[in-house]
C-alpha cells in the first residue's frame, strides 16, 4: 500500500514517527490516527504527513477541535476493538482532555476488574526552546506519570522514536507518548528492520557509558546531557548519561547500577522542579543506593514558574553549563 522504508535510513524524529505509524497501520487494520489537522495537513509538525492519502479518511481522522472529544471518542473506539493513536497538537493543549485521560483512560481496565482494555496512544509534542508563544512549550509529563493506569514514555532520538511508537501502539495498556519537539528535526540513523536489539518500551538505556558521575535525563534533555558529557570529557571527567525513556513505570535499574559505580547522580529535565520526575528519581536512588552515594542527588530543571516568554526561555531551560555546574556540585562534597 505504501513505500515502507527498509534498511538503515537517516531520518529525523518526525519522519521516524511517521514511518512507525505507517508500519503500525499496515500491520494492523485496527490502528487509527486521529486528531486536529492530522489528515490533509499532516499535522502541524507533519508527523502524520501522507497517512490520510494512503490509509483514507476513516483511518486518519481529522477531528473537531476539542481535546476531550478526541480522547473520549478514542475511548469508545478502543472499547470497540480499535487502536486509536490520538495526536494532541501541543503540550499545553492537553488539559481539556485531562479529565478523560486521568479519570477514564487510566482507570477503565482497573474499574472493569480487568475485563476491558484500552489499547490507545496519546501523542503529545512537548517541551520548549522553539520560540513559541505560551502554552506551546510545556512539560506536563509528571501529571500523567503520577496517574496509575497510564504508561508514560518519551523518546529522545529517531531510532527510539521509530520503534517506541510501534511498541506503544501494540501495548494493550494506554500510553501517553511524549515527543521532544525541539529535537524533531535532528537526524540519525534508524535501522528499520532489526527488531533484535531494540529495547523493550519500558526500559531505560545507557546513552553514554562513563565512570565519574551519572546524569539521568529523558526526551529533549538527553542531547543536552550528551553535549555536557562531551564538554566534561574535554576536562577529563567521564559522565555516564542515562536516557530514562519510560517515566511510568520508571525503570531505574540502569540508574542504580550506574550510581553504585559512580557514586554521583544529576537528574535533568525541562519540567518544573517541585514534585517532578527528578524528585522521584532522587528519592528512589536515595532509598536504594544510599551507601553508594558520595554526594546528594542534584537536580537541574526548569524553575517553579509558568513557562516563561520565549525571549527568556533559554535562561529557564537547563543547558550544558547548568548540567556541568550540578556535576561540579556533586564533586564538592
Amino acid at each position: 500500500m505504501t513505500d515502507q522504508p527498509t534498511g538503515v535510513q537517516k531520518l529525523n524524529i518526525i519522519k521516524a514517527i511517521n514511518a512507525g505509524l505507517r508500519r503500525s497501520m499496515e500491520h494492523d487494520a485496527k490502528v487509527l490516527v486521529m486528531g486536529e489537522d492530522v489528515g490533509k495537513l499532516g499535522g502541524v509538525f507533519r508527523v502524520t504527513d501522507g497517512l490520510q492519502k494512503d490509509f483514507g479518511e476513516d483511518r486518519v481522522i481529522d477531528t473537531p477541535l476539542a481535546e476531550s472529544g478526541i480522547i473520549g471518542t478514542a475511548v469508545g473506539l478502543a472499547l470497540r476493538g480499535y487502536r486509536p493513536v490520538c495526536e494532541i497538537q501541543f503540550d499545553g493543549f492537553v488539559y481539556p482532555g485531562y479529565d478523560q485521560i486521568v479519570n477514564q483512560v487510566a482507570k477503565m481496565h482497573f474499574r472493569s476488574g480487568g475485563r476491558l482494555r484500552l489499547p490507545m496512544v496519546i501523542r503529545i509534542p512537548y517541551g520548549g526552546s522553539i520560540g513559541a508563544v505560551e502554552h506551546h512549550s510545556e512539560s506536563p509529563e509528571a501529571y500523567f506519570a503520577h496517574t496509575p493506569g497510564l504508561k508514560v514514555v518519551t523518546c529522545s532520538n529517531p531510532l527510539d522514536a521509530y520503534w517506541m511508537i510501534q511498541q506503544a501502539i501494540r501495548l494493550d495498556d494506554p500510553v501517553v507518548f511524549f515527543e521532544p519537539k525541539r529535537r524533531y528535526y535532528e537526524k540519525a540513523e534508524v535501522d528499520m528492520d532489526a527488531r533484535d536489539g531494540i529495547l523493550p518500551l519500558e526500559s531505560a538505556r545507557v546513552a553514554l557509558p562513563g565512570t565519574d558521575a551519572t546524569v539521568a535525563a529523558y526526551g529533549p534533555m538527553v542531547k543536552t546531557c550528551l553535549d555536557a558529557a562531551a564538554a566534561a570529557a574535554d576536562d577529563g571527567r567521564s559522565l555516564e548519561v542515562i536516557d530514562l525513556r519510560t517515566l511510568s513505570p520508571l525503570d531505574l535499574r540502569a540508574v542504580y547500577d550506574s550510581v553504585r559505580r559512580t557514586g554521583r547522580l544529576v537528574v535533568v529535565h525541562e519540567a518544573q522542579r517541585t514534585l517532578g520526575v527528578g524528585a522521584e528519581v532522587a528519592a528512589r536512588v536515595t532509598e536504594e543506593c544510599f551507601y553508594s552515594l558520595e554526594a546528594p542527588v542534584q537536580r537541574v530543571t526548569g524553575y517553579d514558574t509558568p513557562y516563561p516568554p520565549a525571549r527568556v526561555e533559554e535562561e529557564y531551560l537547563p543547558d550544558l553549563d547548568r548540567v556541568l555546574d550540578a556535576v561540579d556540585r556533586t564533586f564538592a562534597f
Partner: protein
Amino acid sequence: MTVETAAGATPPEPELVQLLTPEGLRVPNEHYDALIADITGDDVRAMYRDLVLGRRVDGEAVALQRQGELGLWASLLGQEAAQVGSARALRAQDHVFPTYREHAVAFCRGVDPVKLLALFRGVDQGSWDAAETNFHLYTIVIGAQTLHATGYAMGIQRDGAIGTGDPDRDAAVIAYFGDGATSQGDVNEAFIWASVTNAPVVFFCQNNQWAISEPLERQTRVPLYRRAAGFGFPGVRVDGNDVLACLAVTREALQRARDGEGPTLVEAFTYRMGAHTTTDDPTRYRLNAELEHWKLKDPIERVKAFMVRGDLADQAFFDGVEAEAEELAVHLRAACRALPDPTPTSIFDHVYVEPTPDLVAQRESMTTYLDSFAEEVAR
C-alpha cells in the same frame, strides 16, 4: 391491544410526545402509534413487570443504604418509564453507555442487580461484563460516557454494522445522561462529533429537573431537546413517565441510527422523586407541592390504569408481579450482605494488563505488612 382514547383529558404539554395520560388513557398519535403497533398485551405486561421490579431493586437499595450495607445509592424513583421504555427499544446488538442511575436499564439488559449493589457497597467498581450484555460500566463523571458512546458508535460505523438492512446486524449505541450533564463540555463535544461523523448514537437525556440542588433553569434557557437543532440532528421531547411513548420515540431514534441516518437527542421529560443520592436532602431545595404534583404522573400507576381499563391484566397478574418483587427483594437483601469484601492485595490486580515491577514490589510489601499482624496474633 385495547385502546381507550383520552377524550376530554388535559392536553399534553406542547411538543411532548405522550401516548398514555397520567390517568392511563391512550392518546392516539398517528406517527408514533405505528412504531408500537406490534406491541401485544404480553409486551405491556412484561414492561409493567420491568417497571415494578426496577422500582423494587431501587427501593431495596435505598433501604440497604439506610441500614449501612451500601455506601451510597442513586435512586431512579420516578424515572422507571424513561428507562424501561428506552431499554425495551434496544436490540441485542445495541450498546448502552449509562450514567450511574440506570438501574432499570441494567435490569432490562440482564445485568444482575447484585452487581449494581456491589459497586455501591464498595466491593468493586463494576463487575458486570459489558461484552455479555452490551451494557457498559456506570460512569460517575458527568457526561464523560457520551463521548465513549459516540466513539463506540464510530467504531460500529467503521465495522459496517449500520445501514445493511439486516435487523440482526445493524447496531446503534444509546448514551444516557441527565439534564445537568447537558451543561458539560463533553456532552456538547459528543453532540458535535456525532453530528459531523453521522455516528449511530442516540443521546437519551432523562431530564429529571434537578442536578442535585440545581434546577433546570440553571442548566438551560431553552428546552433541552431543541439544542439538537443547533448541532444539526433531530431532537424530540417525550413524556418520560409514559413507558409507551418512551418506547416509541426511542425505537424510532435507534432505527434511524441503525439505518445510518445519524444521531438523535431524546429528552425524556420526567422527575426525580427521591434525592439525588442517599447523601442528599431534597427538602432543602424543593417544595413538597412539586413532589405531590409529580406523584400524580407516576409511571407505574398510569400503565396499571391503562391495563385495567383495557382489560390487559387481572388482579392475579398484579399480585403475581408483586410477589415476584418481594422475592427479588429478599434475594437482594441476602445477596448484598453475602458479598465478600475483596482481598486487600487485589487492588494491585488490574492497574495494568501486566503488573509493573513497582506494583509487584508494593504488593509484596503490603502482603508482608499484613502477614506481620497474623504472626503477632499467632504468637
